[in-house]
């Protein structure tokens, strides 16, 4: 069921710990870039392993050589010769200096576009590969030099050659993320309808590439005003949801791309009600069940890649007022979602702790306004496992306590089921934390327990609760709540 496109991995030459460290550094760098709105990631499709290709040396080509190769490709008499010339050019273009030389050369792009649209299929393909290398450049000038080719790249999306279409899509995706100037050209050229037509392709590689290109489009700064409305008006959302439906045809690589696409659309808040009427909640809910099932069967390779956007999409959709307005079928009410979520939380704890907040955030949004889901948590005996997460981190602790608050605030019937059990000892532990938010949320929970659960105050006093409170008497954000609790505890 979880068929995945083969990713060929180079054997790693460094240790696991070093990898983790590097990864943490990179995450920090990415977060910084994201904050500064400078997060640009591109994809590169390369057909051969440079080290293995015959006679290949990482050579930087100068303008004269580039010109020679272009001439040969354009006017050579021997077909193979022309192809080889382009291959040599393409290899050279893997190097940024060659790229610079290429764009400096007058008429180079024009010639390349000519080859891209020639009637020689293999020259076309090689020319497209050259463009792809250029599109991947970090230098704006290089990527923007590819602009004359875009109308053709879009035209080719309605062709039939899947490898070629895939290449065009990744190239477009790289160009899209490059600058607003590029998008200002691509939009009137009809990129959205072109993608909408292309998404009907049966080829998984094409679909994954399309998802990538679309996700780049949806991340644009101007997307909420200029792009997402037309995407929502196209058949794209329905097709995306179809590609996210669990079942034998679900492909992980494809699903990951479209889950992120959905995430960007939802975050923009342009028209989430429309997505809900298309059944987004139930599709994503079923997908969540599927993910949990895969975890149970330990077919979990790469699962967290899909879990992350799915959790975010669900969490965000649940904040929409439209959720309450739609019919039952469109809502998320299935208790199995809670079961699935906990199975995933356990998985995250072992494999990807950074996803715990994501899962708990969904749990929070599920329980906030739903007595039914709160009841499920109680009847499925999930409070104790939930409390076990309290020691993981401050962020996680706050979320755990917020979820329990969501349950407790529903009244005595709920608090009764929270009591006795490990709740009080856990709370006394969290009161010993130094983090203000954790303590603050603990105080909120205590207040609810004092209000709705007879005997809670007494038990609290018996276990030296007052001393636990004392530590926080002087903390500005906590003072008022601490005093209120002290009063309630002492005077009943």
């Amino acid at each position, binding site marked *: 069921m979880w068929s995945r496109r083969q990713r*060929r*991995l180079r054997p790693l030459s460094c240790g696991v710990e070093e990898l983790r460290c590097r*990864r943490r550094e990179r*995450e920090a760098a*990415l977060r910084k870039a*994201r904050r500064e709105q400078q*997060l640009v*990631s591109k994809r590169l499709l390369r057909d*051969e*392993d*440079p080290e*293995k*290709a015959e006679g290949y040396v990482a050579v930087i080509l100068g303008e004269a050589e580039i010109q020679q190769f272009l001439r040969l490709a354009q006017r050579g*008499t021997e*077909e193979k010769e022309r192809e080889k010339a382009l291959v040599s050019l393409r290899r050279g273009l893997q190097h940024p200096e060659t790229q610079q030389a290429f764009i400096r050369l007058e008429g180079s792009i024009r010639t390349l576009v000519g080859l891209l*649209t*020639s*009637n020689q299929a293999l020259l076309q*393909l090689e020319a497209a590969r050259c463009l792809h290398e250029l599109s991947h450049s970090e230098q704006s000038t290089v990527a923007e030099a590819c602009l004359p080719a875009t*109308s053709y790249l879009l035209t080719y999306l309605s*062709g039939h*050659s899947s*490898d070629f279409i895939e290449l065009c899509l990744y190239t477009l995706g790289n160009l899209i993320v490059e600058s607003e100037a590029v998008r200002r050209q691509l939009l009137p050229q009809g990129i959205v309808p*072109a993608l*909408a037509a292309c998404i009907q392709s049966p080829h998984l590689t094409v679909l994954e590439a399309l998802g990538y290109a679309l996700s780049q489009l949806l*991340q644009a700064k101007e997307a909420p005003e200029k792009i997402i409305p037309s995407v929502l008006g196209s058949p794209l959302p329905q097709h995306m949801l179809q590609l996210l439906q669990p079942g034998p045809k679900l492909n992980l690589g494809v699903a990951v791309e479209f889950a*992120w696409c959905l995430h960007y659309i939802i*975050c923009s808040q342009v028209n989430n009600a429309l997505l809900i009427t298309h059944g987004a909640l139930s599709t994503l809910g079923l997908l969540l*069940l599927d993910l949990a*099932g895969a975890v149970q069967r330990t077919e979990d390779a790469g699962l967290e*890649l899909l879990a992350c956007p799915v959790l975010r999409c669900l969490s965000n959709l*649940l*904040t929409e007022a439209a959720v309450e307005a739609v019919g039952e079928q469109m809502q998320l009410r299935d*208790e*199995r979602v809670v*079961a*699935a979520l*906990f*199975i995933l939380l356990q998985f995250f704890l072992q494999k990807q702790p950074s996803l715990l907040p994501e899962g708990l955030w969904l749990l*929070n949004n599920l329980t*906030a*306004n*739903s*007595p039914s889901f709160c*009841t499920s948590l*109680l009847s499925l005996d*999930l409070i104790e*496992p939930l409390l076990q*997460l309290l020691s993981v981190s401050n962020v996680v602790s706050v979320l755990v306590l917020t979820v329990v*608050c*969501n349950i407790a*605030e*529903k*009244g*005595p*019937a709920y608090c009764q*089921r929270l009591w006795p059990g490990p709740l009080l000892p856990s709370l006394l532990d969290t009161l010993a934390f130094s983090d203000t938010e954790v303590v603050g949320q603990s105080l*909120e929970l205590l*207040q*609810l327990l004092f209000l709705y659960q007879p005997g809670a105050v007494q038990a609290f006093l018996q276990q030296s609760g007052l001393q636990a409170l004392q530590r926080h008497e002087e903390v500005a954000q906590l003072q008022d709540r601490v005093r209120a609790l002290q009063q309630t505890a002492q005077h009943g």
Partner: protein
Amino acid sequence: MQLPPALHARLAGAPGEAEPLPVERDPAAGTTPFRFAARQDGDVQRHLYLQDVLTQVAGDPERPRVPEFTCQVAGCCQVFDALEDFEHHYHTLHRNVCSFCKRAFPSGHLLDTHILEWHDSLFQILAERQDMYQCLVEGCTEKFRTSRDRKEHLVTRHLYPADFRFDKPRKSKGPATPGPAVQVSAEALGGDQVPSEGDAMEVCFEHTELPPEPSGERRTYGHRIPSTICFGQGASRGFKSTKKRNKHQ
């Protein structure tokens, strides 16, 4: 984190909603639950993934080479040693081919438009009275009186290049214009002269029976390229289809 054993069974069980316990709030309770909405920031994971893919993928292994084989389409003598190359060749040159003039197009949509505008006499008649030239951009429903107007629209509205290769005005079947047989399409190539094997996708098969044209407009293939060399355009010798279209499935 210890999960209750019954949980796994619940996941596999029937869909259902728990019957909620009665809700009874006291106004003295200060808290109201609220739902967190996220912003886009969470996609740091995604970028990590994209960049991981970038650094980890060592590149696809060499495409498997097979013993050389020839394209089986009648008259095409292109040779291949890899299946993907053949696939692309086939789709580029043999898939959306106009059965009237043998030109190949990158998509069914462009082929349909071409046949309509170049080979359909009814179209010509209707075009005298109404806007028949459809915009080439998928999703745009505009129609135009002339091919030139359409091109204007493509350039100004859709930012297409003025020399877009898949939008050639139909050659008129009027009296032959004397002078060098400059193809209409060749003009569009601008500065760089691409050799005459034809621009863009308008593959004109050297050996087929083209519809009769005034000689002044015939392409000058035979003069520049030795006839023994076949650029994979494929001569569809003997291909006399009476069907309106040639769409390989």
